[in-house]
C-alpha cells in the first residue's frame, strides 16, 4: 500500500507539472503568427461577430436586466464598438477571476468589465485608452464614521471582488484587513449586519447608496489617486488595440461617453454625483 500511495503522489505531481507546462505554453504560442490565439480586426470583421467579455452582475456597469438584456456603461460602449466594426455582438459573461484567461486564450476579443488598469495587469494584457475614471469612497455607519484611512488600521474593510477598491487596498494598504464578497448586495448586507467597519468602492456608488440608506455616511469622498478603467485586449493584438484607441479618440467628437453616462448612470447616481468625476472622453483624463 505504501508503494501504491507513493505512486499516486508521484503521478499526481506529474499531473501538476503537466498542467503547468501546458499553461505556460502560451508564451511560445504568441510568438508565431499562425499559432496566436487572438483575432485581428480583419479576422473579426470577416467572421461577422465580435466577442466582448462583460460583467453580468455589476450594476450599473455590466448587468442583465429583468428582460434578459445586457445593460450598463460598459455594455453601451461594447454595442457601439460592434456597430462601428459592422459585426454582430456576442457578450461573454466574465468574472474577476477569469478576465485575463479569457483574453489569453482568445476566447474573447475585448474585455469591457470594469477593468482597472494596473502595471501588473498591463504585463498580461494590453490596455487601450481609458473610458472611465474612479475615485474611491468609504462609507461607514453613523455611529463610527471613518474619516481617514489611518482609522482603518485595526478594523475590517468590506470590498467587492473585482472592483477598483479591492485592487487599491490590496496594493496600497496591505495591513488593512479586507472582507471580500462577490456581490454588491452581499457587501451591503454585511455592512448593515455589522460584519465590517466600513465599505469601500467607487465613490459614485457609495454616495448614491448612503443617500438611500439612513444610518450611514460617506466619511471619505475621494481617496488616493484616480484609477483608470480601460478596455483590455490580448497581449500583442496591436490591430485591435489601435482600432479601439482610434475609436475612443474619434468618439470624443460626439461626447459619446457623456452620453453613455446619461443613458446608463444618470438615473442611478442622480444629482449626488458630478458626471465629470467619472467620465473620460477621448481617453484624456
Amino acid at each position, binding site marked *: 500500500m505504501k508503494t*501504491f500511495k507513493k*505512486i*499516486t503522489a508521484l*503521478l*499526481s505531481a506529474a*499531473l501538476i507539472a503537466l*498542467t503547468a507546462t*501546458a*499553461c505556460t*505554453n*502560451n508564451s511560445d*504560442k504568441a510568438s508565431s503568427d499562425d*499559432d496566436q*490565439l487572438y483575432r485581428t480586426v480583419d479576422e473579426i470583421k470577416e467572421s461577422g461577430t465580435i466577442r466582448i467579455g462583460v460583467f*453580468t*452582475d*455589476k*450594476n450599473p456597469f455590466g*448587468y*442583465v*436586466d*429583468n*428582460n*434578459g438584456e445586457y*445593460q450598463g456603461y460598459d455594455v453601451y460602449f461594447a454595442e457601439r464598438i460592434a456597430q462601428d466594426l459592422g459585426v454582430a455582438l456576442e457578450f*461573454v*459573461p*466574465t*468574472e474577476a*477571476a*477569469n478576465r485575463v*484567461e*479569457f483574453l*489569453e*486564450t*482568445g*476566447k474573447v476579443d475585448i474585455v469591457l468589465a470594469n477593468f482597472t488598469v494596473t502595471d501588473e495587469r498591463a504585463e498580461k494584457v494590453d490596455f487601450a485608452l481609458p473610458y472611465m475614471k474612479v475615485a474611491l469612497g468609504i462609507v461607514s455607519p453613523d455611529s463610527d464614521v471613518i474619516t481617514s484611512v489611518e482609522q482603518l488600521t485595526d478594523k475590517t474593510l468590506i470590498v467587492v471582488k473585482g472592483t477598483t477598491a479591492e485592487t487599491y487596498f490590496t496594493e496600497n494598504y496591505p495591513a488593512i484587513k479586507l472582507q471580500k464578497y*462577490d*456581490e*454588491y*448586495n*452581499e457587501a*451591503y*448586507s454585511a455592512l448593515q449586519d455589522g460584519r465590517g467597519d466600513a465599505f469601500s468602492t467607487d465613490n459614485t456608488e457609495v454616495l*448614491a447608496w448612503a443617500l*438611500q440608506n439612513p444610518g450611514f455616511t460617506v466619511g471619505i469622498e475621494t481617496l488616493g489617486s484616480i484609477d483608470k478603467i480601460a478596455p483590455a485586449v490580448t497581449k500583442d493584438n496591436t490591430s485591435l488595440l489601435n482600432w479601439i484607441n482610434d475609436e475612443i479618440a474619434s468618439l470624443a467628437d460626439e461626447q459619446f461617453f457623456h452620453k453613455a453616462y446619461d443613458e446608463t448612470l444618470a438615473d*442611478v447616481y442622480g444629482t449626488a454625483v458630478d458626471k465629470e468625476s467619472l467620465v473620460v472622453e477621448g481617453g484624456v483624463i
Partner: protein
Amino acid sequence: MEGYEVIFAGNNFIRLLSGLWVTVRISLISIGISLILGFIMGTAMTGRNPFVKVLCRVYLEAVRIVPQLVWLFIMYFGITRLTGLNLSGEAASVIVFTIWGTAETADLVRSAFGSIPIHQFESGFSLGLSKIQLYIFVILPQALKNLFPNIINLATRMIKTTALISLIGVTEVLKVGKQIIDANRYEAPDAALWVYGVIFLMYFAVCFPLSLLSRRLTERKD
C-alpha cells in the same frame, strides 16, 4: 419594488428556469455516461489484475483530490492554450463532470461488490449456479441495493457542483440568480433572500425526486 416581486418581473422566472435546465442538462449527460463507464471500470477494479487496479486507483485519487474548479479551468482554458482547440463552456463542463463521475462511480461499484460476503459466492456455486447466473441473480441485486443510495448521492452532488461552471462562462441557475439580484439592486435591495429561496426550491424540486426514486428502489429489494 418589493423583494418577492423581483422574481416575477420581466422574464426573470423563465431565466431562472433556463438556468436550471442548463444545470440539469449538464448533470444528466455527465451522470449518464459516468454510470456506464464507471460500472465497467468498477468491475475491472474488483478483478485480479493489479496493474489495472493501481491505474484506476490513481485515476480516482487524482480526479477526486484536485478541486473541480481546477479541472474546469484546465479543460476550458488549458486545453485551448495547449492545442488551440476551443471547447465551449458546456462541453468542458460535461467532460470534466463525466471524468469525475466515472471515477466516483467506479469506486462505489468496487466497494459495493467488495462488501458482499464471500459465502454468498460460495453458496451460489454450491447450488450449481454458473458464474454468470451467480452474478445476475445473487450478487448484482445485493450490490445494487448498496449502490443505489450512493449513486443518488453522487448525482445530487454533481447537480450542486454545477454552480462552479459560472467561472468558465456558463450561466447556470445560481448565476442567473445573482444577475437578477444585482440588476434590481437599487429598486429592490431585499430581493436576495427571495431569489435564493426560489433557487433553493428549484434545486430541491430537481434533486428530491431522484432521492425518492432511490428510496423506492432500495425498499423494494427487501
